[in-house]
């Protein structure tokens, strides 16, 4: 595990460590159970095809959770996620990398907390952003 990161360590424009995911269909079934989203387009290719899809697709909310993992792994024990979101603009499929990325857009103080704003997104290997969003985290300060 990486060391704790502090507010003073980061700058606007910095990219945070990427998180690269590549879903198996097994992972999609685990997510269906773990999240309670039983929509068949995520594990039944016939039903996916009947909905005009090329095959089963990765759940949007799983990509949101991947972005949450990227933030959690970056801010470590002493940071807190204040807010994060993403929109589901493009589909991802099992077996293809889902690259979670984030870039710092602002650093600010609010009510004594040290906040960092980011643009976050998932992208495909060709660079297409499939889940763009924004995040705000609280980082500890060296004081």
């Amino acid at each position, binding site marked *: 595990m990486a060391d704790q990161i502090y507010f003073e360590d980061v700058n606007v424009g910095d990219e945070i460590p990427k998180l690269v995911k590549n879903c198996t269909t097994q992972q999609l079934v685990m997510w269906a159970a*773990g999240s*309670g989203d039983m929509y068949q387009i995520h594990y039944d290719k016939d039903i996916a095809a009947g909905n005009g899809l090329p095959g089963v697709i990765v759940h949007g*909310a799983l990509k949101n959770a991947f972005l*949450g*993992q990227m933030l959690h792994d970056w801010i470590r*024990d002493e940071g807190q996620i*204040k807010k994060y979101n993403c*929109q589901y603009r493009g589909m991802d499929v099992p077996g293809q990398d889902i690259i979670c990325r984030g870039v710092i857009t602002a650093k600010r103080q609010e009510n004594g907390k040290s906040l960092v704003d980011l643009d976050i997104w998932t992208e495909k290997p060709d660079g297409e952003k499939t889940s763009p969003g924004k995040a705000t985290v*609280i980082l500890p300060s060296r004081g």
Partner: protein
Amino acid sequence: MTEEAIITDEMRAVIGKEAEPLTVEVDKTAIRWFARAVGHTDLVFYDEAYAKSKGHRSIICPPGFLGHAIHTPDKPTNIVGNSVKRPPAIPGLKLMRLLNGGTEFEYYGEDICAGDTLKSVSKIADLRERTGGLGRMLILTTESNFFNAEGKLVATERGTGIMY
């Protein structure tokens, strides 16, 4: 020729109405399942002794955890078979397909741990009509607020559904 509006006055009337509160029992097994499905490697989501060593009361909720549905057999499921966690239903809705358009989670600095019992209050925050790649669509925005045992707001989930 004008097409019939998707959003009727009857549907518009549900905007902002809060549904009956739901009880959300934050459960260790459910947290571990969720964390494993995502691929989390931090033991703070799996191992209670480790989580306590980090100052938490128990294993903690991973980001996005509170979005999961709660199923009881006496409650309806939606068109894709998922538990409807956000009544009220939208009266007169004819569009049949559903896509998830986006998700936002907001947290307010309180630890949410296994063993906590939260109250969740949901509402339809907005309904909009849009024409796009899928034809005429209904954009449905929902908001769920989660309160801890002391009544303190600990998390908000905002979701966007696209019905077409």
